[in-house]
């Protein structure tokens, strides 16, 4: 096995046994990234120098007799919507193409505190708005399993990097499925934590009431390790929960016997590819074999989720993105007066999808429409949350496909935003309800494209997700498959 294909917990063991140094692993990962970046295009910025010096520092901390933090020396890619002090943070938007933050996001601070090696900044749909990373204002990213296909989005760069060995693990952010759907498309593990578990400070806001940062990794144990590093209250984010998170690695290697798996009828209807359906059914049977009990649950209001989401999220986005006006930082289009400067900057700096959502959100908040759209969407959101509360009275976790399809072809859905929006139909309700969910590899299509199983748990019950997905992972081989991207010589 190549060094860049290993997991963090495997590397950790080798670091401790002095079989490997962070410098060696980092060099291997950075070389892999450089080699196949022209094909995958996972990164906006590759930080060779910073990675090298961080690895050297980690190796000093990993010296005998010292107790290094769990992620010391592990090469981790950071999604380019999380601020990194002194390192360009673009949100994959032209409007921020030259923005270098003078501060770190709290998550980045915590990774640095763990002496992780930041490999660079990964590509995303501009301002995390999209499901294919095709909306990046910098460049597109390609799926390592089939370079003609999309990696999913918006954390497509992170998922592709982890899948292809361009990083050991990565951070993602998930507003409506942006961690889970690309994890599913790229055959890796992606977890969207409960709203408030991970600080949003320094995460460039798309929709503040829905955004959450989470891990994208090669297996479940790595996801627990990375979540351990990220989770916990942050005084800089008043929406972050005032709780002491448990050690999530203690939830793996536990039995799932008697665990009740909720199967919502609404999630197993039409609109999903037969191959996806078959893989999910098979996965549920696998969980049954392991001792879990399937139960039927109802999520009556889930048909309204996508509509409610595209009102809430765009309303918040229309305000969150107002600050990009060319006055203080980022791109500026010159003009004779300040009003033209602002409107020209925004006209040139934002891509089509971002503009579409700003307009949608502005409309939803406008006088005369506010109650009919925004307030109504909030009510739908409450009903969706209640559906989950009731369902979790009958079950411990809910299972569903992560996405109705496997990775689609580049350009396949770009002309039809509505169809693109529907690729998040199973992930969006989780964000609206503020609860947690994980996507894990659970099969492949005939075309050798990964399929993801989504498991959903109540707020702050990430532990359940780790227990069940780790048990599933131990009983299957899906997570061990790696795409074979060969550098063009």
């Amino acid at each position, binding site marked *: 096995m190549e060094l860049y294909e290993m997991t963090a917990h495997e590397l950790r063991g080798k670091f401790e046994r002095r079989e490997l140094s962070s410098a060696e692993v980092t060099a291997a990962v950075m070389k892999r990234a450089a080699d196949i970046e022209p094909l995958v295009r996972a990164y906006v910025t590759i930080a060779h120098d910073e990675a090298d010096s961080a690895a050297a520092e980690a190796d000093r901390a990993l010296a005998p007799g010292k107790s290094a933090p769990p992620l010391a020396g592990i090469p981790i890619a950071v999604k380019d*919507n*999380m*601020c990194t002090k002194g390192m360009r*943070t673009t*949100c994959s938007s032209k409007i*921020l193409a030259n*923005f270098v*933050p*003078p*501060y770190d*996001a709290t998550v980045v601070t915590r990774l640095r505190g763990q002496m992780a090696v930041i490999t660079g900044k990964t590509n995303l749909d501009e301002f995390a708005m999209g499901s294919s990373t095709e909306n990046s204002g910098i460049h597109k990213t390609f799926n390592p399993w089939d370079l003609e296909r999309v990696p999913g989005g918006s954390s497509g760069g992170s998922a592709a990097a982890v899948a292809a060995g361009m990083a050991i693990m990565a951070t993602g952010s998930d507003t409506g499925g942006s961690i889970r759907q690309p994890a599913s498309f790229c055959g890796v593990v992606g977890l969207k934590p409960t709203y408030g578990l991970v600080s*949003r*400070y*320094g*995460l*460039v*806001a798309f*929709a*503040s*009431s829905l955004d959450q940062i989470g891990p994208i990794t090669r297996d479940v144990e790595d996801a627990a390790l990375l979540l351990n590093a990220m989770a916990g209250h942050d*005084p*800089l*984010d*008043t*929406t972050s929960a005032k709780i002491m998170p448990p050690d999530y690695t203690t939830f793996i290697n536990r039995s799932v016997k008697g665990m009740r798996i909720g199967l919502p009828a609404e999630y197993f209807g039409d609109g999903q590819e037969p191959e996806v359906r078959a893989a999910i059914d098979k996965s549920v049977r696998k969980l049954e074999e392991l001792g879990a009990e399937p139960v039927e649950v109802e999520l009556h209001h889930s048909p309204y989720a996508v509509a409610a989401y595209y009102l809430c999220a765009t*309303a*918040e986005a*229309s*305000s969150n993105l*107002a*600050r990009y*006006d060319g*006055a*203080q*930082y980022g791109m500026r289009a010159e003009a*004779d007066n*300040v*009003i033209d400067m*602002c409107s020209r900057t925004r006209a040139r700096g934002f891509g089509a999808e971002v503009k579409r959502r700003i307009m949608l959100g*502005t409309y939803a*908040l*406008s*006088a005369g429409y*506010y109650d009919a759209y*925004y307030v109504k969407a909030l009510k739908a959101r409450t009903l969706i949350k209640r559906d989950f509360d009731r369902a979790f009275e009958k079950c411990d976790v809910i299972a569903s496909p992560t996405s109705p399809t496997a990775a689609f072809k580049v350009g396949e859905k770009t002309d039809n935003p509505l169809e693109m929006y529907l690729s998040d139909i199973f992930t969006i309700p989780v964000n609206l309800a503020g609860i947690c969910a994980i996507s894990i590899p659970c099969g492949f299509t005939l075309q050798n494209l990964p399929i993801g199983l989504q498991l959903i748990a109540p707020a702050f019950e990430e532990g359940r997700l780790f227990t069940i997905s780790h048990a599933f992972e131990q009983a299957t081989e899906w997570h061990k498959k790696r795409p074979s991207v060969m550098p063009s010589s």
Partner: protein
Amino acid sequence: MPRYEPVIGFEVHVELCTNTKIFCGCSTRFGAPPNTQVCPVCLGMPGVLPVVNRKAVEFAIRTAIALNCGITKYTTFDRKNYYYPDLPKNYQISQNYASLGTSGWVDIDVNGTVKRVRINNVHLEEDAGKLLHPEIPGANYSLVDLNRAGTPLVEIVSEPDLGTADEALAYMNTLKNLLEYIEVSDCKMQEGRLRFEVNISLRESGAAKLGTKVEIKNLNSMKTALKCIGHETRRQTALLERGEKVFQETRLWDEAASVTRAMRSKEVAHDYRYFPDPDLVEIHITDEWQEQVRAHLPELPDAKRQRFIAEYDLPEYDARLLTASKTVATYYERAAAAHNNPKAISNWMMTEVLRELRERDIEPDDFPLKPEGLAAIVEMIDDARISGKIAKDVFAKAAQSGRDPGEIVNAEGLLQVTDTGEIEKWVDEAIAENPDMVAKVKAGQTKTFQALVGQIMKKSRGKANPALVNELLKSRIP
């Protein structure tokens, strides 16, 4: 009776005197070099989040209590969306759906008549920065100073309960006084810490139905606000008398021309698209917290007036005048503490000190003569070390220079002469020089006796003790 009468309401912005800004740790100090009191949060950089300053919330609770408002148990912040270069996020964090205080009132004294003005709401928000327009011919740019961005503001929104300029002035003065009393703001208008926006509509005199409302911004002093009310009333009256309509709009006060002007349509945000700020959680104002703030509320004007009457044995009139402003009341209390003659000090305050402050348009804090100095003057009179007349001169000198009154008296030899030998000499001289007057006094003309005393005082250059002069003169002219 004029055909139309104005209906006036106020929106008053008060910069709170917290040490740090409302959503970050930057200083709120006035007058620092541009853009030196800023951080990623108040600059509105990507990804930053606001954290509420608890002190600012407490000051707002204090204000709401002082204005007799109901306190909202779960108060929330909303975003007010509009584009302007002095607003880094292009939205202002304010309160719209659950303002901290609602449905209050304040009593104002309009030339002796008490009138109750209803307060619609009291809410918290962040201030914007400042635009600086270079005064260089041909300059095609403006500069932004964001030091002020994020300074906590309380906005006090009144109902349109005011009908005259006098009432408007009384309202503004009462508010300013109250805000100083509760120590939430220093209210320095020249530093923009207290800013007024007026809304005016006209209605047929005596009618109940309100006319179309016009809002006017950019009023930086009470004087300006009054000028604006006068102008706007005349403007709207002229429109109505010509049979034209008043447009509902926001206008700006043009100080140079003393007129209001319509804002350019592009400068007006027609729809602020308020919605709850998802970055901030609701604030629970518990009963305990409210009670705690109430318990630590500084003394309010009414209570202070009652105390002045009881503690210093002052007439109601004196107490009302001395407590009309917190700074004057504080000045008085310091003086009264330094010398025990509260009524005499009150007299000096009401005549000399308040006149000086008015003429120079300054606050007691900026008055060169400190309260202890005033007390020293009164004490010297009471101890018969100087006469009332000399005291006036000493006051005038100390009020100009800030010199210590005792030092002035010593340096200029103004100490009252109580040495009978010296006074006898002046008395004898005066008798010798004015035989006619002496004759008249002997004939029983008391007026002439006083004139003769005046002659003696003149000889002493005002320093002779008047009582001794009287006594000695009486003994010389039997």
